[in-house]
């Protein structure tokens, strides 16, 4: 009888996870944000990335100078932050290129990649400026009825980084209360997916409810408790609102104040454990979800 131990485990270190990303690659960032891996990217000083992402994770990567091109449907920060500040400044200065899109167009491009198709058609965006400001989107006449649609080319991330609640050691992932809306699209479109999880659970627990498995095997796992902090992690903790506000405030000012934030929270801690030490256990425990 084959021994269970012959099955390869898929757990890797944060160092190895980010080690597979090179300057100039296209990386996709899920929601909730895999902030621990995002911080590691900043620590390593990666450059010229194309980032498929939104909100806080996208903005802090731009703030740290890692980004050349943005594929985003939304670069705001929720309540009270209508436009993410580093994104806004870099875009207005022409320092980043924006591949203008929207949710249905983005998921169509990702779905095309997953389905092995050069494109998928989409109706949302017909009549808007999106095809003018993004020449990769082609307005065309459908071959069946002749209706006007937008052809969205396949979007293929080199690496997709996600945050989830749990997985087993073999890469069977379970999101508590469901994945973020775009995460599974980002996974299926990508050449490689790395999922940071709050907790590694037994394979038996996965098998006890296979229907709950949201991503099955083929992905690498980083064990990162509190790894989405200061963002939320469904079923574990809510946003650390003051720290998110501190970031957006520093990003609004820019310059030394933003640099100080990035040094303190991203560059000086040499690992996720050092980051959590800097944040402090009390603060983390206060963020319980319910």
């Amino acid at each position: 009888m084959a021994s269970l131990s012959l099955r390869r485990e898929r757990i890797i270190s944060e160092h190895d996870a980010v080690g597979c990303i090179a300057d100039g690659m296209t990386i996709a960032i899920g929601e909730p944000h895999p902030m621990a891996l995002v911080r590691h990217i900043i620590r390593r000083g990666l450059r010229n990335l194309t980032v498929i992402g939104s909100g806080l994770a996208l903005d802090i990567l731009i703030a740290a100078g890692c980004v050349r091109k943005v594929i985003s449907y939304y670069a705001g920060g929720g309540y009270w932050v209508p436009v993410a500040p580093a994104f806004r400044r870099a875009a207005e200065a022409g320092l980043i290129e924006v591949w203008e899109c929207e949710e249905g167009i983005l998921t169509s491009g990702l779905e095309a990649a997953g389905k092995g198709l050069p494109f998928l058609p989409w109706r949302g965006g017909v009549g808007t400026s999106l095809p003018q400001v993004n020449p990769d989107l082609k307005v065309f006449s459908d071959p069946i009825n002749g209706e006007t649609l937008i052809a969205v080319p396949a979007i293929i991330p080199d690496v997709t980084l996600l945050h989830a609640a749990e997985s087993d050691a073999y890469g069977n992932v379970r999101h508590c209360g469901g994945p973020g809306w775009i995460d599974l699209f980002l996974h299926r479109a990508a050449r490689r997916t790395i999922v940071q999880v709050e907790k590694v659970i037994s394979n038996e627990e996965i098998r006890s409810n296979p229907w709950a498995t949201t991503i099955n095997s083929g992905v690498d796992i980083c064990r990162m408790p509190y790894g989405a902090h200061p963002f939320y992690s469904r079923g574990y903790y809510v946003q650390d609102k003051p720290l998110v506000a501190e970031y957006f405030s520093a990003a609004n000012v820019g310059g030394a104040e933003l640099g100080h934030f990035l040094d303190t929270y991203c560059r000086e801690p040499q690992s996720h454990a050092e980051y959590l030490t800097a944040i402090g256990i009390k603060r983390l425990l206060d963020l319980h979800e319910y």
Partner: protein
Amino acid sequence: MNTEIPVEQTQSCSVQEIMAVFLARDLVDGEQLQVGVGLPVPEAAVRLAHLMHGPNMELIFLGARMNVAHLDSIPLPQFGWDRRVVRWAESYSDTGHRFDHVNDWAKRVFFVGGIQVDPQGNTNLIGIGEDHRRLKFRGPGSVGTPTLTTHVGRYYIVLNTHTARTFVPKCDFISTVGWGDGDPNARSKLGLPGGGPRYCVTPLCVMDFTESPKRLRLRSVHPGVCVDEVRDHTGFDLVIPDEVPITALPTPAELTVLRERVDPGGLLRSPN
């Protein structure tokens, strides 16, 4: 904007509360009400409607579908992506298939904001400027508004401010098509199945659209706002009827539900 407005002598309310109540009354039982992240007025409106007269409504937040009319309170989120608001959901299955069932959206209602709105109700979340590569003001992006407004039965344009910089003769970029060039058939000519924008609600007033051509028309001004103030803060010739009523005030019952069961934290009364 947050001047206190007397309600039946004994209560006063904020403009945001008036906006939320106006919207709530316009929503019909059985509809699906979808609200994006960071829009407190529509967030409050759909909760209020659900509790007041919508036991068969479905609220769609953050990919979850809910019918929660039986709850004691349906509080507003405390920040964007506050997933505690969906803890009573009946399904999250919108998540993986949120855009795979748009043929069912005739009964869905949506709300959009914008950094620019033109007389035909086209809106812009992309940015302000002439050259997309060097915008003078970079907006947040279109989120899902192009797809949503393409398919939903109707939608509302809801803004936090009402200025001549927002209400412009022509959007620099269009992220959602309202009535295009104003032709009542503009949407069907583009093949957009949804019903288009119904009202535009701002801190000053409510606007609807003339029949043909489709063009924004003042429908009511909020208490304490005069017609000239709206005109002065609108960057194009708004259609203004001879008689412009005052937006109806919340009833005491509505205000009680709104404050005790929807917005106990007073978000709609805060100056922010």
